[in-house]
């Protein structure tokens, strides 16, 4: 039964059918809970979707966007089930933004959704964020990982300023730098060139990257 629901839900993800995907979860959660739906349906379906996204080129922008929105819908419903006085368990704070001069928000927005779904407390500073502001926020909230998104080479080189800011404030090793965006997928060597500590091929792979970088930063 759960396998049938999982398969149907996964097909809805692929077909960008947000309403039917929500409806099937709503129905399932009536006798169980949305939190159980997250673990038993959403997460396994997203893992399959992520594998497809990483290995096949025919996952469209629309599919990625709707998968994120469906995940956000279900996580919101799961959060509503929690008693008001109970704080959600958090994996830790992370700060992210599109680097200076970059306005391509889609990737960042998907990353925010998938990170929050995975239990991270995300501080999203938006588009065109200068290096100093990202690091100020990281210091303020105690984030061990800062994520910078850039779509093009022209803006990717601005990530170097972020690396410099981390190093000049003596935070090297204690604050890790995650980078992402189309240009890093097409030119992986850029990750090291701009001073990044790691990248992920798509938004669904970012929570795993964050866990690795967070562990590395914790070890100093």
């Amino acid at each position, binding site marked *: 039964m759960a396998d049938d629901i999982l398969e149907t839900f996964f097909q809805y993800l692929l077909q*960008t059918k947000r309403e039917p995907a929500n409806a099937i979860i709503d129905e399932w959660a009536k006798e169980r809970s949305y939190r159980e739906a997250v673990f038993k349906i959403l997460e396994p379906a997203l893992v399959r979707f992520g594998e497809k996204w990483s290995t096949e080129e025919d996952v*469209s922008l*629309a599919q990625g*966007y*709707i998968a994120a929105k469906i995940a956000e819908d279900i996580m919101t419903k799961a959060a509503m089930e929690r008693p008001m006085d109970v704080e959600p368990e958090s994996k830790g704070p992370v700060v992210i933004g599109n680097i200076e001069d970059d306005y391509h928000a889609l990737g960042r927005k998907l990353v925010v959704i998938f990170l929050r779904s995975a239990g991270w407390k995300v501080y999203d500073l938006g588009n065109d964020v200068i290096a100093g502001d990202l690091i100020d926020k990281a210091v303020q909230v105690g984030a061990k990982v800062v994520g910078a998104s850039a779509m093009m080479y022209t*803006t990717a080189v601005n990530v170097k300023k972020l690396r410099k800011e981390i190093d000049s404030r003596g935070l090297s090793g204690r604050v890790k730098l995650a980078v992402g965006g*189309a240009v890093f997928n*097409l030119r992986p060597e850029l990750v090291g060139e701009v001073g990044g500590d790691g990248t992920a091929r798509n938004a669904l792979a970012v929570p795993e990257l964050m866990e690795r970088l967070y562990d590395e930063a914790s070890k100093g």
Partner: protein
Amino acid sequence: MNETEHKVVFIACSIFKSELEEIKKKSALNISVRYVPSMLHMSPEGLNLRLKSLLQEELARSKKVVLLFGDCHPYMHEQESLPGVCRVEGMNCPEILLGHTRYSSMRMEGSFFLMAEWSKRWREVFKEGLGLKGKTAKDFMKDMHDKLVYLDTGLLPVPMRELEEMSDYSGLPYEIMSVSLEPLLAEIRRCMERILKDDIHTSD
């Protein structure tokens, strides 16, 4: 064609065809242009290879090259850094037309830019290329942007029907903004001066 014009070739995105032809006419620039189809932007690797091949061809003929493109594929930086090559300033076509300050402030306001050639092809780009249809398209566009802004250089009729359809499809209002060709002309002049100056130094 004078000696300077003889030395220079433009490799330009077809999205700028009307603007570049107008500038050539008004500035009496008799320069050869090789236009590359704008739809190649949907395939960065295809664009990279096409430009690589055109640059090799023109540089082998001892030509100086002005690239009229944004940062449209991941290896553009290497191509524009070749001796005898200059790319106009701007990371994409709206920024090339508007200049950095105006472009940035309009992006911060949530503008999504449209130009003549892509306005006619919006269905091909959004529906077929990106797979955005129906409610998904509206949700997506409204999540990312606040308005459509058509950049009108005054050289082609404003495609009103396409703007209306695009507005209906995206759920976003549209504006038509008149744009001067002066920033583009200034960038073309800067590039030509630079590559020809490099040429004088090389000859020395």
